[in-house]
Every structure is written in C-alpha cells, then in structure tokens.
C-alpha cells in the first residue's frame, strides 16, 4: 500500500515542525542573543544602544571577586546538596524497599515535597529558621545547644539553604531508586543469600551495583536542577546576607533585573550555561563508563 500524499511522505518532518519552530524562536534565538550581548556593554537604564566591546565584559566579570565567589558557591551548594540527597535518598529507598503496611501512604508523603511550591517552602523555612521565634532554635535549646543564626549569618546561610534543598529533593532520589529496585530481578539476591551472604553484604555487593545506573541518572537530574537552584535562595535570602548565599543564577538575575547591566549579566549567564552543560555531560560520560 503506497501513501503518496505530501503529508504522509513528510510526516517525520511535519509532525515535529511546530515544536521545533517554537523551541527555535523561544529558546535558540534568545540564547544566541544572550551570547551576542555577552560581547557588548549595555546598560538598559541608560537609554543608549548596546556597544560592541569584544571580550571586555568577560575580562571584567571573570576577574571580579564577587563572581568568583558566586561560582565557587554554586559548586559548593550543588555538591553538598546532591551528595547528601544521594546518600539519604538511596538509604531511604533501601529501607522502604519491602512490603509493609502503609507503603502507599509513605510513597504519597514522599511526593508532597516534590510538588510543593518552592517559593512557599522557602518562606516556611524562613519562619522555621527565624533566630528569635523560629522552631529551629527552640529545638537546639531544648537539647541544650546554643541557638544558631541560620540564614542570618554569612557562615551558616549556605548550609541552612542546603538543608532546605535536601528536605525538598531527597524524596525524588528515593522514589526513583525505589522504582528501579521494583524493576530488578530477585534472583541475584536470592543466590547471594543461599551462598550465605549477610544482609549488608547483599546490599553492598549485589543490590547497589544493580541499581547503580538508576542512582546515577537520579543524581544527574538532581545535579542539573541544583546548579540552577533559584526559588528557595531568592525567596529566603535574596543572595544575602551581603553576597554570602549568592549563586550564579541569583547573581545573573540581579545583574539582569536589578542593575540592568545586560552585557555583564550575559557573561554570567553564559558561564552558568557552560557549567550546567559541562557538568551534565561529564556525569553522563561517567555513567556510560560505569556501565561499560
């Protein structure tokens, strides 16, 4: 049977065409425009057009201490958040990976942080961390520890924000790993048990290696989002106190929409883009290597 109509012959191109045009207009064009702006100097508030300055904006931004701290902070935030989420998430999945009364309720509870509006979560934790009325200090004092300043102090703000991210996103790792465990065959575990392996040995040498690809994928997904974390930081601290919790995303946002320095902002965005892209590519390579 031959379908010779134009639509039928060109279906593989026509079906995705509207989506391609949309993504080209709203993503590719803007990203190229950002790239172009990164070679200019342009203050939106001055009313002057953008002037081409070559690599000047790069030279200015990349050597600025505020930028370098933001870059380092972005990595630190991401590293600690994703590492803790990975360990806790996998641990919870291994604990919950058995039949028990209330398992479906437990899985529903795990979903709640994932669908909760991050801005609102940030504000709830603001109240929690408040040094004078917050529950966090009440808990510390009840167990005899001195009260902390949490997000109000430059030294404790980043760990406090990591904790919020860990609370919100650990369940995602747990759910993904649980789904991975559910799809695994029982045989290798049974075989190890018959050979007399202890529960811990089975987990360490059989279960974890088997779900490793799933764990790594979950970590990649988290990593991409953690590098771009915006809502909770912006809502809770706005990058402060001072610049103590300013990540690249927050800094880029401020340069764009508070200072309106579009050229320098574009440089920050290009760097953020390269960081996100490079890290994802790196981990995917790592994952491919671990599977080979």
């Amino acid at each position, binding site marked *: *049977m031959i*379908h010779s109509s134009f*639509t*039928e012959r060109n279906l*593989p191109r026509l*079906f*995705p065409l*509207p*989506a*391609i045009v*949309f*993504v080209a207009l*709203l*993503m590719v064009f*803007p*990203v190229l*425009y950002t790239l172009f702006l990164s070679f200019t100097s342009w203050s939106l508030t001055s009313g002057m057009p953008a002037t081409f300055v070559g690599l000047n904006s790069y030279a200015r931004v990349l050597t600025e201490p505020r930028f370098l701290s933001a870059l380092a902070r972005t990595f630190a935030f991401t590293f600690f958040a994703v590492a803790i989420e990975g360990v806790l998430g996998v641990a*919870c999945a291994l*604990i919950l990976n058995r039949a028990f009364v*209330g398992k479906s309720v437990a899985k*529903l*509870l795990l*979903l*709640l*942080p*994932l*669908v*909760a*509006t991050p801005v*609102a*979560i940030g*504000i*709830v934790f*603001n*109240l929690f961390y408040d040094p*004078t*009325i917050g*529950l966090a200090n009440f808990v510390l004092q009840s167990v005899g520890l001195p009260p902390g300043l949490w997000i109000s102090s430059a030294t404790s703000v980043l760990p406090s924000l990591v904790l919020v991210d860990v*609370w919100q996103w650990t*369940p995602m790792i747990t759910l*993904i790993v649980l*789904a991975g465990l559910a799809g695994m065959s029982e045989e290798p575990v049974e075989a190890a048990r018959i050979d007399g392996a202890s529960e811990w040995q089975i987990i360490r040498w059989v279960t974890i290696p088997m779900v490793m*690809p*799933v764990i790594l*994928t979950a970590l990649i997904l988290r990593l*991409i989002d953690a*590098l771009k974390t*915006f*809502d909770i930081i*912006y*809502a809770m601290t706005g990058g402060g106190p001072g610049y103590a919790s300013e990540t690249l*995303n927050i800094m*880029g946002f401020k340069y764009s*929409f508070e200072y309106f320095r579009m050229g320098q902002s*574009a440089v920050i*965005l290009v760097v*953020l*883009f390269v960081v996100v*892209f490079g890290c*994802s590519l790196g981990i995917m390579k790592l994952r491919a290597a671990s599977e080979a």
Partner: protein
Amino acid sequence: MRKKFVSTALFYLVVTGIALVVLFPFLWMLSSSFKTQVDIIAWPPKIFFAPTLQNYRKVFGEQDFLKYFLNSTIVGTAAVGVSLVLGLPAAYSIARFTQRKLAVFILLARLMPGISFLMPWYIVFSRLDLMDSYTALILSHILIALPIVVWIMSSYFSTIPPEMEESAMVDGATRQYAFWKIILPLSGPGIITATTLSFLFSWNNFMFSQVLSMEKTKTLPIAVYNFLSYAEVDWGGVMAAAVAIMAPAIVLTMIFQKYVVKGLTMGAVKG
C-alpha cells in the same frame, strides 16, 4: 521470633521518623496559618492555641488571591494545552522514527537555565509592549511544559507496539489518521501523566512570572512572595497564602498519585 518483632518495631519506628521529617514543614505551615501574629511570635513556640480564620480572611479578602489563583490557572492550562498540541505529534515522531537528535534538541529546554532565555525575553517583550500580558507569560510557561510533554510522551509512545498503526495502514489508513484515531486514544495514561506534571511545574514556577508579570497577570507564587516585602512580616498571612498555593497542587497529586510518580521516575528508570 522475638528478634523478628524487635526488627519490625524498629523498622516502623524508622518509617515513622522519615514520615515526620517529610510532613513537619507542612504541619507547621498549616498550624501557623491558623495562628494570630501574637501566637506565632510567642516563645516557646505554641503547639496548642485558639485557632483563628483571620489570616485566610485577609488572604482572600484584602489580597485578592482569587484573581492570582485564576491567573495561575489560566496560564497553566493554556501553556499545557498548547504544549500538548505541539508536543504530542513531535513525541510520536521521535518515538516512531527514532529521532534522537530532535529529542535532545527539545529536552535542552529542560536542561538550560531558564534565566538564559528570560533576560532576552524581557528585552523583546518590553519592546513589543507585552510585559504583564498573558501572551508573554503563557509563551514562557510553554517552554516549561513542552519538554516535559515530549519527554514523557515519547517514552510512552514507544511502549505502544508499532503494529497498532501498521495494521491500520495495511488496511489503507494514513499514518496521520492512525496517530489521531488509534494511537492517541490508547495514550490516556501517558497524557494524564504529562498534563499533571507539566501543570504542576507551571503552577510552581516563580522566576518567569516574577519578571514577566505585574499586577494584571500576577500568579500565585509571586503573590505569596510579595507578602515578604512588608516591613514586618505578617507570618500568619504568608502561611495562609502558602497553604492556598500548595493545596491545589497537593490535591492534584493525591488524585493522580500513580501518574505523578511515573512521570517523575520514568526517564531515570528506563535508563
């Protein structure tokens, strides 16, 4: 026997602990939303108090939350609707003709930092006089929803055996006809997953709306955030606002629990 009992008890203790940690912020938010400002700033924090509805009265009376609620719903529904129209044929094509490059191209929108398109959008939408318009906001939210639709639906379509449409095509149907009349009707669960998940992401989005919307098109996350800008934070009001924004998302999640879990985990588990 006794050892088994102890280990079971220990297991439930751990599970209860995990559940409490997960639930705690929600419970604290909920209870604070029924407290007066005096009860909220009381030290030590009060667990028992006389509940009040004044915060909710403020949020829905003075603050016009119903308007923001409507805005969030309009933007989310329109963005998801357009994304399905654009994304379903694209996802089908990716699944059937194994167009991996195309898949990567559209999924890049999920990978890239939103702010790298937001800044140019801001410049262009200002020039076109589209700031604070539903058009600009919906366009931006389509870029959130579309990659989710394509990601979920291309995996879903590839689980439907190609024989489904091939047998129809042998009988003389066009592939286009087979897609609309045979494949889509079989795709209900996938479409529910894609719709729920992309709507939730649009509902929760803060950054795009913060820049592109003002009073007319303000969405809920912005309205909640604006509570913080007062000199003294009205904690009761902001907690009631937080409950108001999360309640629909949580109800939606409870109704479509199975689909949401599938959507959040599918890509990872399939490898």
